[in-house]
């Protein structure tokens, strides 16, 4: 007998997703989730994007989440479907991207029996999710879904997985609305006011200050980015951004020093090294940023604002910490600043800026121009100049092209830059762009790719075509895993072990085989033309640019070196052969 208040687990699931504001799911079906797919077909509130590989579903949900500020949603089957999603989950965990990933599971009575397509996915993903659940009773399903969304988006965001045994979605149970679901998980968002006042005092008294801002401000939202911009401009202090923070402060603002860290600008890294007050907002002192820890910004007092207490004093001991959400804390800092009208040391600040201008004079992102071969930096600059009026969303893969994009694009708006920073996942960009385009159908969405990375999720070209997602993929084809080749050249005696691929597909034909458009540029004078052609098409496009294979990313802080020991270019090889790899820096 069917009780009239009860629903099937699949119905409950979809109702819970709708109540959580889900409008798109990225997924791939299989036996364990067929009841859910059956239910999906009966409704039209939630759109399903059918990917070609589960890893891509997760990256697409990351793209959706990071470009909207909402929680991304994924649905995959048990066993291989779930294990294929693991890389995406680890990526989202490293970069603090809010996701809910639904995985099918064998029926509860078969769990532990090595059943067909059984994998202990809650066990496998425990260290690479923010939290995960195995639902054993249909009556707990709605509550679990609501709590999962709450956990994914609250505090430091991250991926949450819900494992759904087949019988749990087939059985009947009661629905519970979000309003009736209370969670014990409620991280602190307001910062301690006394600490905020102390911070304002330290900031106002600074003689050589710098704002070091990271992805936490992006996580906090567009409002946090606006408040940050307001505050930095009120002080007139210089500001540098991490790879994950790009867009949080306008790239075209004169107070912006460019990205810092391993491939950061001279002015950003030198200012970090010589500053007397460092204001870290939503950045985590990553080893790609600090260089050798015992030489990191030795003369500064450090303030650190972060919502996750475990980010504080993890790598670098700080003098003042404020636990809270960036938007709340910056808002309070602005209030205190306005109320106190502090007198800043104008003279010291002028001297500091003139020092910074000196470093800027080094023009550390310059590169040798060429009219015979396409320099990758040139390709990116032209791409930026020809598209910036359309405020594009830029995704990247991982490698040299990613670094050149970070250096040469001067993005002005937040949520428009999507890259895999913490895990550095080759194959992230194309599916992420797919997710962005799904959320913003009329926007210009570009994936800046390397010829090696793009092949890691190239199958998603078919998804783009099927769902009319006109993503533009610009491949900088340097014939090498360039970033690996660069390290081999600079650190391993130019022995290019397995970093060259002797065979690549014909990318133009490949695009056409998928039903997309393929274009190619082989000389600098063809670059503008193919970009314009690409922009004129309202379909997915692959543009292959044949770029200089020998180009390296500079400046570079070699592994184990300090901020004031950058290698500036090919000529400046005085710091080859770094001593040890132990202190701070690791792999490509």
């Amino acid at each position, binding site marked *: 007998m069917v009780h009239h208040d009860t629903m099937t687990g699949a119905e409950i699931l979809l109702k819970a997703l709708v109540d959580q504001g889900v409008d798109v799911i990225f997924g791939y079906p299989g036996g364990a989730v067929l009841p859910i797919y059956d239910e999906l077909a009966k409704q039209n509130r939630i759109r399903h994007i059918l990917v070609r590989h589960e890893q891509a579903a997760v990256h697409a949900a990351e793209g959706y989440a990071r470009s909207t500020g909402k929680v991304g949603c994924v649905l995959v089957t048990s066993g291989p479907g779930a294990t294929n999603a693991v890389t995406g989950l680890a990526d989202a965990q490293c970069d603090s991207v809010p996701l809910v990933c639904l995985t099918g599971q064998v029926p509860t009575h078969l769990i532990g029996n090595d059943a067909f397509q059984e994998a202990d996915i809650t066990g496998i993903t425990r260290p690479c999710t923010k939290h995960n659940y195995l639902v054993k009773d249909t009556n707990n399903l709605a509550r679990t879904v609501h709590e999962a969304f709450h956990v994914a988006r609250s505090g430091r965001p991250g991926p949450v997985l819900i494992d759904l045994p087949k019988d749990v979605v087939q059985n009947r149970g009661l629905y519970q609305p979000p309003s009736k679901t209370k969670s014990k998980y409620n991280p602190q968002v307001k910062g301690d006011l006394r600490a905020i006042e102390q911070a304002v005092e330290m900031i106002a008294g600074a003689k050589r200050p710098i704002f070091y801002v990271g992805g936490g401000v992006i996580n906090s939202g567009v409002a946090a980015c606006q408040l940050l911009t307001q505050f930095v401009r009120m002080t007139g202090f210089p500001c540098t951004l991490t790879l994950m923070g790009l867009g949080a402060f306008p790239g075209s603002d004169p107070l912006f020093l460019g990205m810092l860290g391993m491939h950061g600008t001279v002015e950003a890294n030198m200012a970090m090294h010589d500053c007397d007050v460092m204001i870290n907002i939503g950045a985590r002192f990553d080893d790609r940023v600090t260089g050798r820890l015992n030489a990191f910004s030795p003369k500064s007092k450090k303030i650190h604002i972060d919502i996750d207490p475990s980010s504080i004093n993890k790598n670098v*001991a700080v003098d003042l910490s404020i636990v809270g959400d960036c938007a709340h804390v910056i808002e309070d800092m602005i209030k205190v600043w306005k109320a106190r009208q502090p007198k800043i040391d104008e003279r010291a600040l002028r001297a500091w800026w003139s020092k910074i201008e000196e470093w800027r004079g080094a023009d550390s992102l310059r590169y040798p121009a060429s009219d015979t071969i396409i320099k990758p930096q040139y390709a990116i600059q032209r791409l930026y100049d020809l598209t910036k009026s359309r405020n594009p969303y830029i995704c990247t893969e991982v490698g040299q092209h990613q670094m050149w994009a970070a250096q040469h694009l001067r993005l002005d708006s937040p949520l428009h830059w999507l890259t895999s920073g913490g895990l550095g996942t080759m194959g992230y960009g194309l599916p992420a762009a797919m997710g962005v385009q799904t959320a913003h159908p009329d926007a210009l969405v570009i994936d800046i790719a390397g010829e090696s990375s793009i092949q890691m999720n190239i199958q998603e070209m078919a998804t783009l075509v099927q769902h009319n997602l006109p993503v533009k993929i610009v491949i900088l084809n340097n014939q090498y895993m360039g970033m690996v080749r660069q390290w081999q050249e600079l650190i391993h005696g130019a022995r290019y072990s397995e970093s060259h691929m002797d065979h690549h597909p014909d990318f133009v034909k490949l695009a056409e085989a998928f039903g997309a458009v393929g274009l190619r540029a082989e000389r600098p004078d063809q670059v503008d033309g193919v970009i314009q052609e690409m922009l004129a098409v309202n379909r997915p496009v692959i543009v292959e640019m044949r770029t200089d294979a020998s180009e390296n990313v500079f400046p570079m802080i070699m592994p184990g070196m300090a901020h004031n020991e950058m290698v500036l270019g090919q000529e400046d090889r005085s710091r080859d052969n770094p001593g040890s790899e132990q202190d701070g820096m690791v792999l490509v």
Partner: protein
Amino acid sequence: MTDAVQDSNRHTISVLVDNESGVLARVIGLFSGRGYNIESLTVAEVDAHENLSRITIVTSGTRMIIEQIKNQLRRLVPVHKVHDLTIEGPHVSRELALIKVASSGEKRVEALRIADIFRARAIDSTNESFVFEVVGATEKVEAFITLMQPLGLVDVSRTGVVAIARGPKAL
């Protein structure tokens, strides 16, 4: 800035968690995944009504590492409270050990005599063996085990440390 090189110290950390499946795996996985040290770990339900368990962990590390351990524990969703008993004021800690000694003659008598000094109770005995139950601070339990070694020690089973703050207040 404080010096990064600091002496490693032992801390007893008390963690109140939801009593749900997987929570112990999360805590242990955190320690092994991040290379932290577990000297002892005990867990049992302490509040059936609220469905809470207490995990008591003895660990060691520099000040920065101990702070990381506590903050990492607080990040886990089913973790409600994390207290460092070592720095939060006076506390008492105890463990219980069951110790099997097989011997005869003079050694058997000596084992009983030492057990008496340690207030260890014999909770099982045969003609050729005893099982002693000893309760106390880790040092006391270890001292007892050391003394039993030459007297026919065959097996040891220990609970690990449980601890609680002194005084009237709850953590």
